[in-house]
């Protein structure tokens, strides 16, 4: 935020049009900012990596206003406009920074010809694999070949043969023939993942991407190299040959692996998820995400998925299950074990249920080792949501010892457990047998087996909602695939429980109606917040009320606890 105020804008001229761009920005970004769908084609340049300048695709013509060498005065054309001295040869856009008065041509004949030349050279040794190549449909080479290729080959010699189907690591397969040597993956491993495993061997057209001897591409960010590969050289071993990308629907979602809340895209077709890729958000995850976070969609099709509302193990309807939950809660002595995996909307309802029933709320923290990048120590996506909605006021413990004592003393008669297996949190099966258990969750476990009432819920891929990440950023996710048949969204089920507790009639809710109710009640939310109108890259919330809490996250890619505290404690400048 501060940097933006320092950076000054300068005016450059792109294809005869004056454009205001920040000083120091490179030509590729400047042209993108000029809008109108204008693009300088490029392969090796990536906004989050260092500049290599080796693909030579982003050639543009550049010129500067001419000045008299002796006097230093600007030389003018006859009509009074500054005379532009064009460089005799094109220059690469990625390594050319905008400077005041610079003139750029992105569509002149010379530029087009140089792009055509580069494309022809790149295609010399590129195999004609498109029908079996997974990148087809999202391949930059394919796209630019259509625009800048000649449609036939003048190359009559034999193409180079390079290793195909090479295993680079547990999750990445390499096809060296397709590689155009852009070195994005090499730079990513070195600069972002801090694990320098990839490099080129041999020279000229024989250059081959490979791992250093004795090493493999095994770090938890290896699949990002697949994402940034502009061609089909690096492929995901898991997604390989599964589905063509043009059939897949993209849905914006949020990764639930940790409190980072990486922005993701879910790729699905006909209710089946095929892959998850990161979505760019410069405030949260840049353009990266962990490999482990990409696997999280797999359990939603597992056998032990809860698919029916049940009372004492017998299938029933949603309404009857909710009515039976209301009865159990009204009997009193309820303990609510909430979840930091629930969305903000659900936590808002759990808070209502707790308030109306006088239930004691506990939450369980899930922690793991952080990697300082995009995997934080807090392995739940929405702990901040529980704080903001008021479900909890202090940070949760890792186990439920106190609740176990209360069960043994008979102070608790009903446990309302959300997505947590209580038997793994210090409450024995014998203890659970003494109380009524209401279980809300996606998958069967030891707790759901002994539960009196089971309310199956939807996974993050099947519902609409929001999470609040480590830096109190409210982020929205959308349903990518339908849930198991007959399962209603959690907030409508919870409304059927919460409303009767205060002698109201349950309303039929949509996510927008939930927000109409919720936004005015939560002080950190602006009254005008609506789920539908939240920006795609999230909203930073006011975190000043929670700065005293000792969160477990340590410094990672976009979050530094000390700096965060400092920034939010400071009075807001006018």
């Amino acid at each position, binding site marked *: 935020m501060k940097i933006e105020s320092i950076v000054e804008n300068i005016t450059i001229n792109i294809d005869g049009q004056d454009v205001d761009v920040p000083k120091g920005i490179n030509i590729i970004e400047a042209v993108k900012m000029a809008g109108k769908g204008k693009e300088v084609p490029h392969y090796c340049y990536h906004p989050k990596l260092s500049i290599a300048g080796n693909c030579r695709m982003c050639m543009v013509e550049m010129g500067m206003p001419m000045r008299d060498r002796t006097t230093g005065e600007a030389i003018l054309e006859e009509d009074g406009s500054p005379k532009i001295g064009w460089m005799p040869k094109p220059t690469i856009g990625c390594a050319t920074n905008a400077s005041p008065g610079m003139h750029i041509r992105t569509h002149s004949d010379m530029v087009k010809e140089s792009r055509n030349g580069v494309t022809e050279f790149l295609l010399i040794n590129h195999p004609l694999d498109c*029908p079996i190549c997974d990148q087809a449909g999202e391949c930059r080479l394919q796209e630019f070949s259509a625009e800048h290729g000649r449609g036939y080959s003048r190359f009559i010699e034999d*193409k180079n*043969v390079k290793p*195909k189907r090479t295993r680079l690591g547990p999750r990445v397969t390499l096809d060296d023939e397709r590689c155009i040597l852009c070195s994005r993956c090499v730079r990513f491993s070195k600069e972002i993942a801090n694990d320098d495993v990839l490099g080129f061997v041999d020279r000229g057209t024989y250059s081959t991407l490979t791992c250093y001897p004795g090493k493999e591409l095994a770090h938890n960010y290896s699949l990002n190299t697949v994402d940034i590969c502009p061609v089909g050289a690096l492929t995901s071993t898991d997604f390989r*040959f*599964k589905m063509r990308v043009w059939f897949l629907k993209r849905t914006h979602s949020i990764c639930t692996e940790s409190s980072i809340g990486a922005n993701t895209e879910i790729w699905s077709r006909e209710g089946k998820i095929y892959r998850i890729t990161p979505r760019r958000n410069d405030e949260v995850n840049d353009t990266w995400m962990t490999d482990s976070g990409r696997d999280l969609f797999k359990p939603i099709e597992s056998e032990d998925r809860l698919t029916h509302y049940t009372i004492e193990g017998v299938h029933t309807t949603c309404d009857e299950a909710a009515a039976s939950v209301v009865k159990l809660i009204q009997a009193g002595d309820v303990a609510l074990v909430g979840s930091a995996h629930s969305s903000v909307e659900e936590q808002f309802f759990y808070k209502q249920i707790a308030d109306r029933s006088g239930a004691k709320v506990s939450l369980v923290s899930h922690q793991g080792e952080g990697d300082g990048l995009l995997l934080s120590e807090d392995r739940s996506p929405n702990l901040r949501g529980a704080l903001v909605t008021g479900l909890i006021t202090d940070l949760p413990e890792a186990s439920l010892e106190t609740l176990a004592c209360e069960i043994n003393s008979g102070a608790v008669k009903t446990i309302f457990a959300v997505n947590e297996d209580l038997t793994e949190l210090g409450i024995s099966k014998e203890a659970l047998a003494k109380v009524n258990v209401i279980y809300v969750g996606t998958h069967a476990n030891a707790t759901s087996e002994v539960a009196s009432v089971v309310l199956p819920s939807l996974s993050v891929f099947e519902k609409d909602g929001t999470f609040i990440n480590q830096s109190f950023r409210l982020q929205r996710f959308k349903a990518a695939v339908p849930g198991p048949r007959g399962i209603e969204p959690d907030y409508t089920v919870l409304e059927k429980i919460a409303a009767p507790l205060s002698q109201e009639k349950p309303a039929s809710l949509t996510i927008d109606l939930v927000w109409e109710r919720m936004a005015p009640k939560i002080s950190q939310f602006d009254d005008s917040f609506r789920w539908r109108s939240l920006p795609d890259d999230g909203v930073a919330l006011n975190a000043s009320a929670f700065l005293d809490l000792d969160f477990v996250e340590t410094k990672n890619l976009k979050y530094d606890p000390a700096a965060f505290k400092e920034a939010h404690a400071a009075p807001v400048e006018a």
Partner: protein
Amino acid sequence: MAKTKVLERKPLSFAEKTFLPQIVSGLKTTFGTMLSKGVTLQYPEERPVIPDNYRGVPTLVRDPNGREKCVSCQLCEFVCPPKAIRIIPGEIDADAEPDRAHVEKAPKEFDINMLRCIYCGLCQEVCPEEAIFLQDIFSLSGYSREEMINDKEKLYELGGTLPDKHFKWDKKKAAEQAGNAHH
């Protein structure tokens, strides 16, 4: 409302009133055709000659060496206007078929729903491997909806083998073995 206009009918002449000229001319046609060569076919025993570019039932074909040509690129599935084609792509098992491992990809399942197919031929036109052809089968029937969905096995049975001019993958394999490799 439009008014109906009644047209006066021309009164019949004497010859027309007897109907004899009409009967004679009709019988002339009848006896004339009786003696000329027949134009109908005794279907299904006799079958018509199908022209080369006829668009019949879409089928999958093998190359002259009996190998599968389809690489499950799914372009036909994409282009199919009535969404009749459904493919589940798969990987060729390198251990089971070492001589075809370099092709990498082949359909695991390939279904064409003939209740949906409109015989437009776009699948044949789009196929980069020349693996799908609308051949000369024009009469397709079945007792159930399931029967009308041609699976991979049925499609290859219907398709048979067609001459291949390119042998693209054989060339690829030869290049790999002879190679222009550095080492």
